[in-house]
């Protein structure tokens, strides 16, 4: 079997694998990448499993509202916990609708539904360290306009959202220059260590009490209500929706803060917290919480990570080597191809991921496609370089010896280009290991999931248990490619 047929078969196998994954249809609950949302997601998962007896998957720690909303519309997830204010401002802003009823109508048109509110409101607030607020005499937001040197650390989503910083700054005439965008969990760390003075809070965050922060009074009532509720697809079975509705009016703010506290400060898993809550309040036994050991978690994440890296790398290899060769034999097209794959490389990875959701949903496929796109440049360039660096005298010799075309390519040119091709592959593989960590934001798993969780729980050990294996994997790949080079490249042209 020659290389072309072999690659065709493998490509077919990958496509089949991907489509099988898409066919197997469990109910999927999604959740955003902060603790409260994950606990709510877990509650939904366990109650449905218990009530309806269906198997439910919980895809936790997906990045941002847009990712989840698009995934819900596409049917990649069926349910996720959301907040009324977010839906109204972020998703329906352009529709000019602002009541829950209007919202419901609009969502029905998209095939989506919402439960009634769960009974707690998790609004935005601006928070400060209590002692600093007291020493400056600040207790409401309107007082901030006279303290222009204060340093802000605001969540990326908050900075951009209609109902976030832009509107707030306008409403209170805040013209502060000293604003950094940062992850919500990182901001808690920064405010605790005094690197920033103000951050955006979610009013049910357990950290407010835990770190002795105060939420400044929203004296102009700028922030809308953010009533927690479940957003779901209308094509779900009645029994599933009924099961979700059991939460309506059930969870108040104190209960939610309490559960957030258990996760953040008692280090209980969301599974455990949800299970305890359900058995105490709804008499639901809940599914047995599986406590993953650190080791089994690392094994699982490594498998996912390797899968992402190598499937994308293999696909890139199948496409890039012929493309690189094409650049060599057809220089005009080559310039365009090289320019194009170069441009792809400059697109920020998060942007590629988000753009891909409407097309490919969430999970492994869009992550693999993004990694595939990033892998193109090093391999195409390596291949092109490999073929074109043959010096002119030798080049003429290859052409003028009377060798058949096949021999010219496979006996002479390809082996001569191989070191540069392998180098490109190695670069792509190592870059992929790093970039794949971002895949966790769209539910692709891998080490990024562990790192995100570590950041969310402010758990350094957890962060390192994602970061160190990733570094080791990159190192391992480097070594593997060096070995591959040793065994594939002729001793006559090997440099090492």
């Amino acid at each position, binding site marked *: 079997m020659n290389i072309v047929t072999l690659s065709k078969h493998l490509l077919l196998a990958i496509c089949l694998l991907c489509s099988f994954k898409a066919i197997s249809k469990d109910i999927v609950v999604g959740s955003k990448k902060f603790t409260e949302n994950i606990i709510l997601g877990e509650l939904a998962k366990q109650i449905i499993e218990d009530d309806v007896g269906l198997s439910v998957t919980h895809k936790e720690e997906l990045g941002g509202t847009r990712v989840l909303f698009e995934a819900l519309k596409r049917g990649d997830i069926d349910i996720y916990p959301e907040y009324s204010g977010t839906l109204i401002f972020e998703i329906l802003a352009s529709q000019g609708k602002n009541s829950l009823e209007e919202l419901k109508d609009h969502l029905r048109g998209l095939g989506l539904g919402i439960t009634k509110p769960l009974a707690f409101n998790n609004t935005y607030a601006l928070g400060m360290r209590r002692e600093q607020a007291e020493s400056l005499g600040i207790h409401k937001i309107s007082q901030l306009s006279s303290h222009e040197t204060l340093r802000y650390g605001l969540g990326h989503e908050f900075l951009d959202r209609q109902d976030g910083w832009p509107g707030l700054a306008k409403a209170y005439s805040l013209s502060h220059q000293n604003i950094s965008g940062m992850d919500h969990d990182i901001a808690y760390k920064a405010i605790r260590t005094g690197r920033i003075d103000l951050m955006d809070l979610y009013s049910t965050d357990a950290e407010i009490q835990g770190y002795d922060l105060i939420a400044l009074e929203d004296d102009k009532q700028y922030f809308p209500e953010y009533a927690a509720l479940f957003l779901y697809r209308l094509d779900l079975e009645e029994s599933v929706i009924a099961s979700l509705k059991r939460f309506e009016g059930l969870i108040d703010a104190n209960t939610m803060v309490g559960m957030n506290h258990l996760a953040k400060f008692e280090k209980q898993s969301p599974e455990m917290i949800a299970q305890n809550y359900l058995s105490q309040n709804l008499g639901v036994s809940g599914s047995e919480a599986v406590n993953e050991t650190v080791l089994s978690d690392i094994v699982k994440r490594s498998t996912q990570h390797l899968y992402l890296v190598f499937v994308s790398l293999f696909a890139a290899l199948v496409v890039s080597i012929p493309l690189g060769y094409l650049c060599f034999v057809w220089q005009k097209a080559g310039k365009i191809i090289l320019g194009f794959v170069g441009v792809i490389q400059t697109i920020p990875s998060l942007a590629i991921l988000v753009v891909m959701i409407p097309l490919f949903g969430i999970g492994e496929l869009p992550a693999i496609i993004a990694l595939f796109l990033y892998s193109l440049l090093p391999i195409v360039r390596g291949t092109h370089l490999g073929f074109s660096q043959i010096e002119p*005298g*030798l080049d*003429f*010799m*290859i*052409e*003028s*010896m*009377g*060798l*058949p075309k*096949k*021999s010219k390519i496979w*006996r*002479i040119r390809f*082996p*001569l280009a191989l070191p540069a091709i392998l180098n490109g592959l190695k670069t792509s593989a190592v870059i992929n290991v790093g970039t794949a960590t971002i895949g966790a934001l769209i539910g692709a798993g891998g080490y990024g999931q562990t790192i995100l969780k570590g950041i969310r729980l402010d758990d350094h050990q957890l962060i390192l248990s994602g970061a160190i294996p990733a570094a080791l994997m990159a190192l391992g790949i480097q070594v593997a490619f060096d070995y591959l080079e040793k065994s594939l*490249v*002729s*001793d*006559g*042209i090997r440099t090492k």
Partner: protein
Amino acid sequence: MKIEGRNLSLRYQDKLVLENISFTLESGNRLALIGSSGSGKSSLIKGLIGLPSFYQGEVKVDGNMLTNDWINRFRRRVGYVIQGGGLFPHLTVKENALVLVRSMSLADDDCDKRFTMYAELAQLESKLFPLYPHQLSGGQKQRAALVRALVHEPELLILDEPFSALDPVIRYTLQRDVKALIASLKKSLILVTHDLNEAKHFADQISFMHDGKILQTGKFLELKENPKHKLIGEFFTAQLAEF
């Protein structure tokens, strides 16, 4: 194999590298192309076995017009050696020598036999067979390249400055060995050189090239005694002068 070139011209980036060149090489004849650097000698060779479509004019092989359709078949009747050898760096000496015949569906045994025979003729030591080009000296590279050019038993041998850039003792030994080898094989030969002495010993005809044109073709003595161009006289004086 008889080769005729008729009105060959070659233009490279607005420069006329070859201008209306005609020549004839009868089967078994040995021709030296001589001239200073840039006179067009190597271009003539490259055009001949490279791409005929680059030329204006025509080349006939045994009376048949050489075209792209059968240039590869023609190339396999030619053995070609360039300055520095032109060995493929990723192949060993033996692999280099056999790369063409192996692609011509010759049995492995026959390939090996031929290789051993021509290696012996070219006095290429057997301990060099498994080595890569970068492990060889300049003279060894040329011997290996010569074996590669002979293994497929071509009718025409083209040697393009094969002895340049070698140190004098090695060059002398190699020249002596190659001359003996060519004499024993009775092949047609085109030798590209700028060394009159070499031309005299290897060839029965010498074409003197300058600025993309052949100024004169004839035996060594004819050119020496009756140069048709002032430049030829000067070239002979300069190279044969004693001081």
